[in-house]
């Protein structure tokens, strides 16, 4: 096995995989994208200049792979179909809540769902900063942003996330109440 692959696998595989998983919210797709990350990494590893740390370099590749995947998913066909199929616009989460999340407490599930409705940028920052526990500097390097952009996006992301979670909670309580009313 390639020594570069081995090295990278040992150090970063699970981290990058987790990032991709939370980005695309699906294990199979995350596995595919992980493959893509390795292909790009091995192709350009000799050009890796050590300007940034290996870790942020790997994350920046993962980020590009994820963004490309989103673009591909939204091919021109889907874009046209969306225009005519209003019902599909309501449906947001294409995949069911994964097992790993489903067994967690309610708040975590709520947060997972709330993340769905954040923008890609917001999602990336939140995942990198809190789930991967990267520093602001590392996040900025991985995303190719300035640190202040990371900070403002992170701030905005938390607000959106909170709003999303509250909305989701409100809906849930409504249905709960309805159920209660019907029962009484």
């Amino acid at each position: 096995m390639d020594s570069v692959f081995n090295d990278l696998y040992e150090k970063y595989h699970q981290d990058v995989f987790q990032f991709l998983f939370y980005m695309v919210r699906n294990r199979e797709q995350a596995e595919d994208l992980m493959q893509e990350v390795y292909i790009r990494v091995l192709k350009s590893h000799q050009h890796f200049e050590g300007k940034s740390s290996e870790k942020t370099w790997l994350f920046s590749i993962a980020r590009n792979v994820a963004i490309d995947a989103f673009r591909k998913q939204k091919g021109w066909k889907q874009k046209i179909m969306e225009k005519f199929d209003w019902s599909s616009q309501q449906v947001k989460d294409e995949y069911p809540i994964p097992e790993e999340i489903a067994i967690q407490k309610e708040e975590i599930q709520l947060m997972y769902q709330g993340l769905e409705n954040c923008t890609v940028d917001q999602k990336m920052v939140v995942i990198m900063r809190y789930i991967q526990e990267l520093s602001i500097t590392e996040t900025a390097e991985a995303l190719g942003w300035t640190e202040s952009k990371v900070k403002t996006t992170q701030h905005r992301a938390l607000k959106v996330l909170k709003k999303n979670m509250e909305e989701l909670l409100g809906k849930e309580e409504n249905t709960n109440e309805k159920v209660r009313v019907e029962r009484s």
Partner: protein
Amino acid sequence: MKKSEWSDHELEQLLQQMPKIKDHRDPRDIYQSLSLKTKKRRAPAWIVPSVATLAAVLLLFILAPQVWQGNFQDSALKQESKDVLDNSDKMEMTKIMPDDDTKNGISSGHQDISIMAAPAETAIYEEELDEQQVITYTIPDQNAQIFVPVSVLVPKNSSWVELYQSQAEKLTEEQWGLSDYFPLNATLSMIDEKTMNIDVPEDHVYGNGSANETLFISILEETISRNENLQKITFSTNGNPGIMLGNYGERFEVNKPETKKKSYFIFRPNTQNSPFIVPGIEGFSDIAAALESMRAGNVTYGLEPSIPAEFVFDINVSSQEQLVLTFTGEEQLLDESKYVYCIEAILLTAKEFGYKSVKFENSPITQIGRFNMENEIKVPVAPNKVILH
């Protein structure tokens, strides 16, 4: 749900509690599928269709001419024959004067004749000089019997001797049906204004046999008399004065020969080209005899008559400068190249006898080629103009 309000801090903590997601696959499996994928990528999807397209286009190119051959054969043949004609035209162009007789043969119908360019002259005339000078080469024919004077126009500003040598490299003697003689295998230089030195290498071939020697000396004599700026040619061999020529012994110089007055004839060494107008073998002391010889030609040497039988005139020698010829014939003359050559041959012969111009009286036609038959016609500067490329 117990809580409906989260602080940022609580959110952050909650995020940190998000479950760690692991990839359970074996790294070896990942690597294997990875190398499979990278290999697969070597042949992108577009290669197969594009190869197929290329093959189809190639087939089209190969097959199309055969499919349409029936339709195109005729025009292709026409094109081909046209090309051949073009080629022969080109050959004429590289040569000297376009031969209008052959052009007539090719073009059919009277209309073509009417739009045809006027028959072209062969010599160089004063009007053409225009800040240029003339170099006349004397080129032997393939039997080394006839010397064909061939003239080129060159810029005046350059040195004559340099041009003489450099232009000589461009002469296409063999294409004209003559023998390849120039450039001389020698270094040429001017010693003074009227004397040219020819420096030959020690292994020169100009002394190999009496024929060679005679030819060499004759050509040089001819060169001196044809080029006004030369009076004398001196020899040196590898820098040392003199040249060894078997029968002559050692020669040091060639002087301007006594001019033999010659008449001019039509010479066609290559029937595809226009003819040369060349001096004959004999010399004459009397212009009337010289002109008379031109009606006969010289079969032995392949010289055609230059004055056609119907071109009849009386000779009227009234002054030293002008020769007057009065037509006495009954026949109508045409504006044709054979009469242009005839007039040129007369002019060149008149020049040999020292006349500056020729006047035709009682001409049945006003214009032949470039010549206005009603005015006096100046003799040419040099015979047989060629344009070198």
